[in-house]
């Protein structure tokens, strides 16, 4: 199974973003997704910057996929989407049916991102017919769901699962970061840049619950399925996705790449407030099952 790095969900400044991806270029990761997926008001990196990063990574042998916006509400966002799809160099990740439609029209193959509502095999087969080459499992689905869907019949598309990182849970018209700072979204001053991992939000009993990232709401805890990599490989999962959260990712990628998947099954998970794996086991996403002995 290969490792992939999902799109950066946070608004980092240009310098930090370039430094991060230059460090990524030096890791053995197979696939890197690049692009703004949250908010079109974030303009730290422009289209040409993403292309520059894409070529930099591509030159070190990485497979690069350009990710697209998740919530598309305006004509200008559609123009930008079309520009990305027509880039003629790199494949794309469709995070809205708008991207699927434009990719279909342009005859560009695409990865079906985790925010497309594909909840059964027939839906995946329809997507494959219109150009899907790979699909990223929707976050709330489980190992059992995936086993069943993949076993139904043979398939020609690849499969990717978010295995490590904070889980995107929802997208809204409202910017929660701006709201927290009592700023209107139209005059947000890109306040989300102050929060490189979002705003950690906890209950009134100090239980970490959510992470506010602009118009996106994420999980407070990181999903960690590193000890399930061998199981995923056996099921036919092709890519284990890591969602960017900081320079620790570099170390993690190197550590995972240097070890056998079977060895990784014995990795202990941290604690329920920091890590979770519930969705994989068909439970509430925030739950953490200590699954050290599970190697099937």
């Amino acid at each position, binding site marked *: 199974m290969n490792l992939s790095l999902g799109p950066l969900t946070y608004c980092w400044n240009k310098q930090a973003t370039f430094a991060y991806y230059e460090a990524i270029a030096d890791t053995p990761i197979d696939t890197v997704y690049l692009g703004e997926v949250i908010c079109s008001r974030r303009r730290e990196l422009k289209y040409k910057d993403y292309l520059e990063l894409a070529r930099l990574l591509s030159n070190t042998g990485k497979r690069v996929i350009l990710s697209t916006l998740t919530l598309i509400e305006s004509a200008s966002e559609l123009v930008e989407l079309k520009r990305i799809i027509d880039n003629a160099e790199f494949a794309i990740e469709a995070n809205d049916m708008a991207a699927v439609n434009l990719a279909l029209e342009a005859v560009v193959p695409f990865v079906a991102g985790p925010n497309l509502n*594909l*909840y059964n095999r027939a839906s995946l087969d329809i997507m494959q017919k219109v150009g899907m080459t790979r699909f990223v499992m929707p976050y709330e689905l489980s190992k059992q769901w995936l086993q069943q869907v993949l076993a139904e019949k043979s398939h020609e598309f690849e499969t990717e699962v978010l295995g490590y990182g904070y889980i995107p849970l929802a997208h809204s*018209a409202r910017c929660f970061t701006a709201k*927290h700072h009592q700023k209107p979204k139209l005059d947000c001053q890109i306040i989300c840049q102050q929060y490189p991992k979002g705003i950690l939000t906890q209950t*009134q009993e100090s239980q970490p619950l959510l992470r506010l990232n602009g118009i996106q709401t994420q999980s407070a805890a990181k999903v960690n399925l590193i000890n399930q990599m061998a199981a995923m490989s056996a099921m036919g999962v092709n890519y284990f996705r890591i969602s960017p959260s900081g320079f620790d990712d570099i170390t993690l990628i190197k550590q995972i790449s240097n070890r056998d998947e079977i060895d990784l099954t014995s990795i202990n998970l941290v604690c329920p407030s920091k890590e979770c794996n519930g969705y994989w086991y068909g439970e509430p996403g925030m739950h953490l099952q200590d699954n050290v002995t599970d190697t099937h």
Partner: protein
Amino acid sequence: MELLCPAGNLASLKAAFNAGADAVYLGLKDDTNARSFAGLNFSAAQIKQASLLAKQQNRKLFLTLNTFAKPGHESRWQQAIDLAAELHLDAVICADISLLDYANRTYPGLALHLSVQASATNVAALSFYKQQFNIERAVLPRVLSVKQVKDLAKISPVDLEVFAFGSLCIMAEGRCQLSSYVTGQSPNTGGSCSPANHVRWQDVGTDKLTRLNEVLIDKSSQNEQLGYPVVCKGRYQTHAEMTPEYMLESPTSLNTMSLIPELAQAGIRSLKIEGRQRSPAYVTQVTQVWRQAIDCYLQSPDTFADTLQKQPQWHSALDKVSEGQVTTLGAYERQWQ
């Protein structure tokens, strides 16, 4: 402009028709729709009865099929489509592309409305559903401003329906996993957001604690008006600021009555009232007020704003049945965003 009202049972359906609904949407008694609550919704026989009533009164009836078919259980969803076709219902409201495909191939004469759970917010997405599955109408997610709704209506390849009144979902519908993150069930998979069997209220001293699967969603005083507990309407805190606040949204309902003229001029085909889980009394109250308002507008479009000012009882009637007894324009208004 159609007034489309909810019904969770036959009494609500009759209430909606009596109060002036042009059309009613309803769901089956199972997980094929996102209001899968005990004691709610219709058996196949009751849907047949409902369709007879609708035909007698020359009203429309739509079947809500807005969850996603589970692997190995697809036939349950397909049979619901078969039933709608057999009873000649006026439309099926659907989000799952495999079901849209099934309906379009099997019953080309059956009208398909794209459910809000499909999260189609732009012309390219709407065109995809139109071209692939020949949808006739789409329900817009509650994430667009009124300006964006108007712009989209000018170029949309299908009729548009918008939410006019009821519980306010603040996330792009169909793509929200907050409920399953905490409870394991989401509207898409389990048939409800924040399922009632996971809700627990606890009295501690003078405080009332609201828990969802043991996670503390809110702490309030005993006499505070509480909405139904959902993750996005809880009071939380950050590391830096320990004073709890509604970090996403407070308990409030959507009310777009003041937008009737703009929505009508934009050519919006249907105004949807939320609330299949609510009582027949709610359905009567809300339908009556909205019927009057729409009729007033149609009779004299130019004076509608004045009329609305002179009818404060419309707003107070709606506020009474609203969550937290407060209403908002939500994302329709830029300021809210």
